[in-house]
């Protein structure tokens, strides 16, 4: 489900790669549904610069970028390159030395920063929850500050806990120290979203949790974002996280200079220069697996019978010789056991005792990386693909995966070749243009689809 959002986003971003298309996606999704949550607002940064006293070189130098309404933009780059500084200038936790910030139709460079921040959600690495307040009190802070009534605040707290996947009854009255790291992060996100701000800024929010929890939280964020369409600016130094979450990624180099600002696909297949390709790094094939879904590859049929079938016909099927192996489904057609030819005999005809249990299944929205993981751990070298209610659809095996990866890499190589020329043009164009990359040069790097 979560992956579907990303896939959809990826597709739209690819299709609408020019600035002129920027409204297409959010309009298509119908933002600002009356009564619904406030959806994203455009953020425009114009020549933002930050100089810290005592340092002649600015920490952030003349950053310009336009972030479309409802878009998730990831700022990624090496440590100390100015990601956090750039992010914090958006809600003016750090006052820019020069430049302008516009959110929606409003120039917020000079408005009261306290008012600005109440309209901009902010979530940070250490969760930033106040340890002396309960989970509910933490979440209620901003809604109370903006003057919501008692009952509305209370309902909202429950709603937000629900939204981030925490049972309100259980977590309402807990203190932050009584939560796991992942739960704290969830509450942090709930607090940031509580007053329904159009913009959400996140500074390495999942940087301090273990990889598995991080994965969950990322999926969760994708799911949330699919419903909410906030404009999210997300800082990380983990490029895999960037690929997974971003509609577009801004790869930053020192002093926040934008090395490339484009869709994940375009950055992976067409890194703008050495710096970006260095940062994208090795393992591009594996990263590519993260970008492709099971639904995008061929799902093969596989002989399957349900346990409701009479034992005799199952035996017949195996004996007939067409199939060496069957997939046994349970009453609701969910994968249950792999059944090899000799299995039934060895178990003296007892279905309950024969075959190996199916431990891994994937949905069509799973990434190929998940599928590969499952295939590698399964003894039969294949994984069952299931539908919405867990019902069996087909299988993906090692061969399919290998062929798909080969095809993708081949396609990537072709794309890269095809566009080297165009890229050179873009680069020369960029050098002539005094203002650094604003908007979206990605269109130039896209494969013709």
């Amino acid at each position, binding site marked *: 489900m979560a992956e579907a959002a990303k896939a959809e986003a990826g597709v739209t971003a690819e299709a609408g790669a020019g600035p002129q298309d920027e409204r297409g996606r959010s309009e298509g999704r119908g933002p600002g549904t009356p009564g619904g949550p406030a959806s994203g607002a455009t953020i425009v940064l114009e020549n933002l610069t930050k100089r810290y006293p005592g340092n002649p070189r600015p920490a952030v130098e003349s950053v310009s970028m336009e972030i479309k309404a409802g878009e998730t933009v990831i700022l990624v780059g090496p440590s100390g390159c100015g990601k956090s500084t750039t992010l914090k200038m958006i809600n003016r*936790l750090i006052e820019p030395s020069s430049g302008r910030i516009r959110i929606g139709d409003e120039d917020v460079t000079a408005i009261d920063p*306290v008012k*600005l*921040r109440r309209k901009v959600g902010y979530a940070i*690495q*250490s969760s930033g929850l106040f340890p002396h*307040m309960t989970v509910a009190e933490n979440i209620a802070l901003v809604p109370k500050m903006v003057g919501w009534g008692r009952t509305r605040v209370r309902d909202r707290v429950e709603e937000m806990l629900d939204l981030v996947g925490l049972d309100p009854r259980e977590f309402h009255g807990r*203190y*932050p120290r009584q939560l796991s790291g992942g739960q704290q992060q969830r509450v942090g996100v709930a607090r940031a979203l509580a007053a329904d701000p159009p913009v959400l800024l996140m500074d390495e929010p999942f940087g301090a949790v273990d990889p598995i929890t991080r994965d969950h939280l990322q999926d969760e964020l994708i799911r949330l974002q699919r419903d909410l369409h906030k404009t999210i600016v997300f800082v990380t130094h983990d490029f895999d996280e960037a690929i997974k979450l971003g509609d577009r990624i801004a790869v930053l180099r020192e002093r926040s200079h934008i090395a490339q600002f484009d869709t994940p696909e375009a950055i992976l297949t067409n890194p703008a220069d050495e710096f970006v390709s260095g940062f994208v790094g090795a393992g591009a094939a594996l990263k590519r697996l993260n970008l492709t879904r099971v639904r995008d590859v061929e799902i093969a049929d596989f002989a399957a019978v349900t346990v409701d079938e009479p034992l005799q016909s199952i035996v017949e099927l195996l004996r007939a010789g067409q199939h060496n192996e069957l997939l046994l489904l349970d009453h609701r057609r969910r994968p249950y056991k792999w059944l090899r030819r000799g299995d039934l005999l060895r178990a003296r005809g007892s279905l309950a005792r024969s075959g190996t249990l199916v431990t891994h299944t994937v949905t069509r929205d799973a990434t190929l990386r998940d599928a590969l993981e499952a295939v590698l751990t399964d003894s039969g070298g294949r994984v069952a693909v299931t539908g919405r209610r867990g019902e069996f659809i087909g299988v993906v095996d090692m061969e399919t995966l290998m062929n798909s990866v080969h095809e993708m890499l081949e396609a990537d190589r072709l794309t890269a070749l095809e566009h080297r020329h165009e890229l050179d043009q873009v680069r020369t164009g960029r050098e002539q243009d005094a203002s650094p990359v604003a908007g979206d040069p990605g269109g130039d790097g896209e494969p013709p689809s």
Partner: protein
Amino acid sequence: MGFWQFLSTRHQQLLVDAYQHASAVFQCMVIATVIGVLIAVLTYRTEWAGNLAVTTTAAILTVPSLALIGLLIPILGLGVPPTVTALVLYGLLPIVRNAIVGLRGVDASLVEAARGIGMSRTARLLRVELPLAWPPILTGIRVSTQMLMGIAAIAAYASGPGLGNEIFTGIASLGSANALNEVLAGTLGIIVLALAFDAGYVLIGRLTIPRGIRG
């Protein structure tokens, strides 16, 4: 006269003195807390100002109490005013120091989070920084109170109220029948009061330190 007999004949006077002693210390503590926390709030952000506040209040504490009261009498006269002034001044150091340390010790990322979600300067102070710094501040108040219990006895020198009167009368009439009993009664009374106050602070701690940060 035995000590118990002394107590039973003089208990009326002793209770009045004890009450006045406790009341003087309590009231001075309230004033010292308000002023001390205020000084801390005004100075903790700047390195030099905070240090100046701590050094100044520390310097006050090095002045012998008898000398300070002696110096205050020509200015403020006898009785309550010099007593209160001296006690408040002495009580400041632990409160100011602990409050500054406590406020400076609040996790910077929490203060930034508070700014980030749009809390005003005042809201940050009242809802985040002071509550989080409250445990050390309360410790400061507790230490301060213990100190004032003893120092308040000196106030009798300036005709102030309290158990000090018993002690001073006793010392002045050393050798007479009840002298020792008076000194003993005054001293023990102060100790009992100090213990009672301390128990009170434990209770206050339980009631006011939020469960989420209680050790």
